[in-house]
């Protein structure tokens, strides 16, 4: 689709896959004897391996964070806004690693992979992963790539939770943590939304308790509903007002139950698109990982004690109209970091875009983020922090 690759794009990229033979014990107690992680890298790793940035993806993200897989690809990677030459995460300066998490459906081992023990697709038998399992597997990928210490680990939403987990679990392996539009744990409301989404999938007759592959079906209707609901929580009332208002597709009401308002057809479109590209079991698994995440629980629910092990500097960013992970949730993290006497900066960005804002080119957001990443480059002794 891009006739010409834009100058500030990382250009054409090819994913790589690494096969891991060493078993990984998961939080659930189950063991993945072997697994693959698919990842992309942008920029060059410097001689002393001090310029590496890890990108952690959110619920429906993957390893394709920037650039294009081919000239036919319609859209660049999901965080192309922020990753590229001269961009916020400047690939002239940094070596950027983005991977698809375990349990994903974009190439890393997950429910759609073949279970080597049974020779069948894992399906619903793929172990439910926790955020710490992802972080453990990411650390192994870092070992493979020869990265002892990340200059920064960066992520939004569920990605931000992985960043937090990194700072607690491998405090000596990252210098900076960038936690965007995230939360220290889900609220009851967040969990409730996830459960409604999971039920929509589970109750789809084509779901077959997760064995849809064996029945040659896909629970498209359920996944579509789940995505429509999820999508609602990513938008704000303001954003929907601006985007659709009460606009109709036709001139007048036609007094039927088919989608009539633009907002309805938009949701249908988003749900439809998602239901053909995403795996339902992966969606179930990812939402469970979200629900389970609560690093403070092991410290008597004391987030300050939990974060006191961290050694890195933090940037925390929230967005005013994000109600999925509202600014107050980010402020819980910030306040805990302040109480733990950690280096932290916090910006609450004015935006009408809700949770989705973290993926959008909002000028003030990019300014703050860029200023911080230039500081990361400076503190890591990388020449030309600003390009």
């Amino acid at each position, binding site marked *: 689709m891009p006739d010409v690759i834009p100058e500030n794009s990382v250009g054409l990229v090819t994913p790589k896959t690494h096969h891991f033979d060493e078993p990984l014990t998961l939080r659930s107690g189950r063991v993945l004897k072997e697994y693959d992680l698919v990842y992309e890298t942008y920029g060059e790793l410097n001689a002393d391996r001090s310029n590496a940035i890890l990108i952690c993806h959110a619920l429906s993200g993957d390893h394709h964070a920037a650039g294009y897989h081919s000239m036919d690809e319609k859209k660049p990677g999901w965080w192309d806004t922020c990753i590229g030459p001269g961009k916020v995460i400047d690939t002239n300066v940094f070596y950027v690693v983005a991977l698809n998490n375990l349990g994903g459906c974009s190439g890393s081992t997950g429910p759609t992979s073949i279970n080597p023990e049974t020779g069948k697709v894992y399906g619903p038998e793929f172990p439910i992963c926790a955020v710490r399992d992802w972080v453990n597997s990411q650390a192994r990928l870092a070992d493979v790539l020869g990265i002892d210490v990340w200059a920064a680990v960066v992520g939004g939403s569920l990605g931000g939770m992985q960043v937090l987990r990194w700072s607690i679990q491998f405090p000596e392996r990252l210098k900076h943590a960038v936690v965007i539009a995230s939360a220290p744990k889900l609220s009851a409301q967040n969990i409730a939304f996830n459960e409604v989404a999971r039920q929509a999938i589970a109750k789809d007759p084509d779901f077959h308790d997760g064995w849809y592959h064996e029945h040659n079906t896909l629970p498209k209707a359920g996944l579509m509903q789940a995505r429509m609901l999820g999508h609602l929580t990513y938008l704000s009332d303001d954003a929907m007002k601006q985007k659709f208002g009460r606009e109709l597709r036709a001139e007048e009401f036609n007094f039927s139950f088919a989608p009539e308002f633009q907002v309805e057809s938009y949701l249908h479109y988003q749900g439809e698109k998602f239901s053909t590209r995403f795996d339902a079991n992966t969606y179930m698994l990812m939402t469970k990982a979200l629900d389970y995440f609560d690093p403070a629980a092991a410290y008597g629910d004391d987030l300050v004690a939990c974060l006191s092990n961290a050694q890195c500097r933090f*940037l925390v960013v929230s967005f005013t109209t994000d109600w999925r992970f509202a600014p107050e949730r980010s402020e819980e993290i910030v306040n805990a970091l302040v109480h733990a006497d950690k280096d932290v900066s916090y*910006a609450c960005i004015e935006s009408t875009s809700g949770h989705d804002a973290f993926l959008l080119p909002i000028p003030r957001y990019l*300014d703050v983020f860029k200023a911080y990443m230039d500081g990361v480059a*400076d*503190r890591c002794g990388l020449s030309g922090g600003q390009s």
Partner: protein
Amino acid sequence: MTALRADLAIIQKWVKPGSQVLDLGCGEGQLLKYLQEEKQVRGYGLEINPEKLTACIRNGVNVIEQNLDNGLGNFADNSSDTVIMTQALQAVKRPDELLDEMLRIGKEAIVTFPNFGYWKTRFYLLLKGRMPMSDTLPYNWYDTPNIHMCTFRDFEILCREKGIRILNRTVMDDQHQQHWSIGLWPGMLGEIAVYHITRR
């Protein structure tokens, strides 16, 4: 190291090396940056202006987006050695409560504010019969962020009522310069004061 604004230069002298500082309304973070680099001070700045907040991040200081009018409940008792607030006291909703908060969080506080008792201000009101405007106070009465102007004497009376001890006071003109002549009648001749205060 760039030269520090004159009032900040006075403030920094009162901050102990290696101590913990909270800077309320920290602007672009110049003072924190200076204290960090020259005195190995640790701490946080609070700021709500977007451009200034970004400048703080560029300056490599910890800055938190937080409105002083929403309170400082997220900072623990005695978590700082010194809480600093330059040129913001007159712009908050409840300066008296904020002073209490500053001395709850910090063992000491440093406050600067413009003197409404400055002779030019007094004469402006007396002769023109209008709310005083000047280079230090460039706003109209209806759009000024300075909603709680006070004189040095007002401030000192408030401190006495609250049992706050004034450790030190430096009075300056609008260029933040000290001059012996201001000392003749500071409440009349001083435009800005820096107070170093503590709990009794």
